[in-house]
């Protein structure tokens, strides 16, 4: 076992993904939900790079996708925080359980 195979790297990214999912499902604070989303995006990035490195080493597409994902993640984080701030202004709270007007 001298080499790390792609499967092992994918194990890490999958685990990271489901940890992120867990955070998304259980965290009631919106900022921590945002953090969970960042974890999920990171696991995707790992996937992209790993596929590029192990399966298509003569191309750069995975790297590019990783770059774009990072860019979009930055934009998304900024937007999400703007929304959170706005929610905080109107509800005095960023608990998602309090923002349940859209029901029934």
């Amino acid at each position, binding site marked *: 076992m001298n080499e790390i195979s792609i499967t092992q790297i994918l194990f890490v990214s999958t685990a990271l993904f489901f940890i992120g*999912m867990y955070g*998304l*499902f*259980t965290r*009631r604070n919106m900022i921590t939900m945002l953090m969970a989303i960042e974890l999920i995006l990171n696991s995707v990035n790992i996937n992209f790079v790993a596929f590029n490195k192990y399966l298509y080493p003569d191309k750069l597409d995975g790297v590019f996708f990783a770059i774009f994902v990072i860019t979009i993640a930055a934009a998304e984080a900024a937007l999400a925080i703007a929304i959170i701030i706005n929610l905080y202004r109107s509800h005095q709270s960023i608990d*998602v*359980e309090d*923002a*349940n*007007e*859209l*029901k*029934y």
Partner: protein
Amino acid sequence: MSHYSYIVFIPLFPLFSFLILGLFGRKYIKIYSGTIGVVSLLISALLSVYTAYQYFFIFGKANGVFQHIIAVKYVWLQFSPGVSIDMGILLDPISVMMIVIVSFISLMVHIFSLGYMRGEERFATYYAFLSLFTFSMLGLVLSSNIFQIYMFWELVGISSFLLIGYFFESPSAVAASKKAFIVTRFADLGFLIGILILAFYSRTLDFGSLIEKFTSVQSPEFIQITSATFLGVSMLTWGLVLVFIGGAGKSAMFPLHIWLPDAMEGPTPVSALIHAATMVVAGVFLVARLFPVFSIDLTALQIVAWVGSFSALFAAVIACTQTDIKRVLAFSTISQIGFMMFSLGVSKYGGENGLGFTGSMFHLFTHAFFKSLLFLGAGAVIHFAHSNEIKDLGGLRKLMPVTHICFLIACLAISGIPPFSGFFSKEDILLAAFHSNKLIYGIALLTSALTAFYMFRLYYSIFWNKKISIHETPHGEATVSMKLPLIILSACTVLAGFAPISSWVTSDGAPLKSHLDISFSALPVLMGATGIFLATYLYKTQNSRPQTIASVLGSLYRGTYKKFYIDEVYLFITKKIIFNGIGRPAAWIDKNIVDGFMNLLANTTAKISALIKGIQSGKVQNYTLYFFGGIVGLALLFIYVFK
């Protein structure tokens, strides 16, 4: 053919007038609305007279026989090659005669209404409705196919409904208009089914080809319709009888006559136009229009004859006891239309045997004049005395000289006294009945005596008898616009009898010779004179003789006064039997079964939604969980099931 196309404008002018008055009348041109109505009708009437002149003297005849001319034809709905609904104009002697009557009487009524309806709040609406009626009636008589006639038939019905209910503040007017509408609708159902039967077997709606197919005994359509039977009666008879039911409803024949007396709730000029001279003869017109077919089928013709003669006698008896002058006139109308009907019923097709047809049309022609004259005269009296009960009237001959003379002329005409017009037309009818069926002839003779009696009873009660005190007479006898039509119509009533209708309007188009026979006319005239004499004896001066006779007759008199309880029978059937026997069970089914089923559906849905609405909790994380579950489910499905 294009040189007839101006005929289109005869019905179109009243339509324009209706549209203009209906749309703008109440707000913008109220004071001119009467003028607009009169002018458009004047143009129509002149065009009609011109058409009649052209038809009867210039182009109508070919080889000595009046032709059926399709003046205008426009395909309206094309179903398949050969089957279409057309809008067209058919010219033949009866339609030409009818347009002259309708436009002329309508013109008279329009002029009369200028005075009679002056100051009404809905003056423009009144004229709009009158114009609508005139348009529909002209369209009806000019129709070239049976479907078109049905449409105008219904239009006539609706305008009659609107005009009867014109004084809609009064509950009795509303009830009367509803009654008229429901009864005639009921009859029209028969008409529609009759149309469908005839059209189904003949595969045409056009009058010309329909008559052609059903009168040639060898045609496949004729064989088919006579061989098909329902309840042992051939389909031809069924179709014709159903069409006749439609006609009987419009023409107020027994037992569908109950709406006509109540229809007198409308303004009196309307009664003159619609419920005396024009619309109510639509049934007669319809039978006359299909007369070649009726003449083939003796059963249908017998029904027409007996319904007509019974209605004539029945209505005449009732008319003797009524105290409302308009109701007397209404029953007299029913009676006279009965004359026209049985005259058609005893007639045969072609030549000398078609005398009944000619008599019927002749009577229609003369009746239009003297009956509208009577109604307009009654209208003038009501306008003057503000009452239409006999007990409030009397001794008006000095106060209303013009009306008095006109009314007298009309009474003499309807009683069949020579040389007034009614004499000539009644003469033809009686002669036709005499040659065909002695019993009907007897009924007709009796009826004409009764006619003379009740008309002169009315005449004496209004103009002689007791003196009444009229409180105020702000407008004199009547305005010029009211007197003028009375005078014109009186002139027509005197002269109409000399019109050579018998050489114009015949069952097969070939002219007939006149049948004036002194020895035959003596008896009817004698009967009429007897009636007049009796009326003079009883009613000329105020006395107690009528009361004595009434008390001697007792229950018979009361029964007649109550119109033989026909209305009560109808009420019993509708209220007691139909409402309880059909209405209530239907309502129960509707409330408990139909509604119950719907409520069950609604309640079940509501309960299910209450159960599952918890899913929509408004909590984002629950939603993401469901979302994740969905994705996993789909992944499983596509990876393991649909590989």
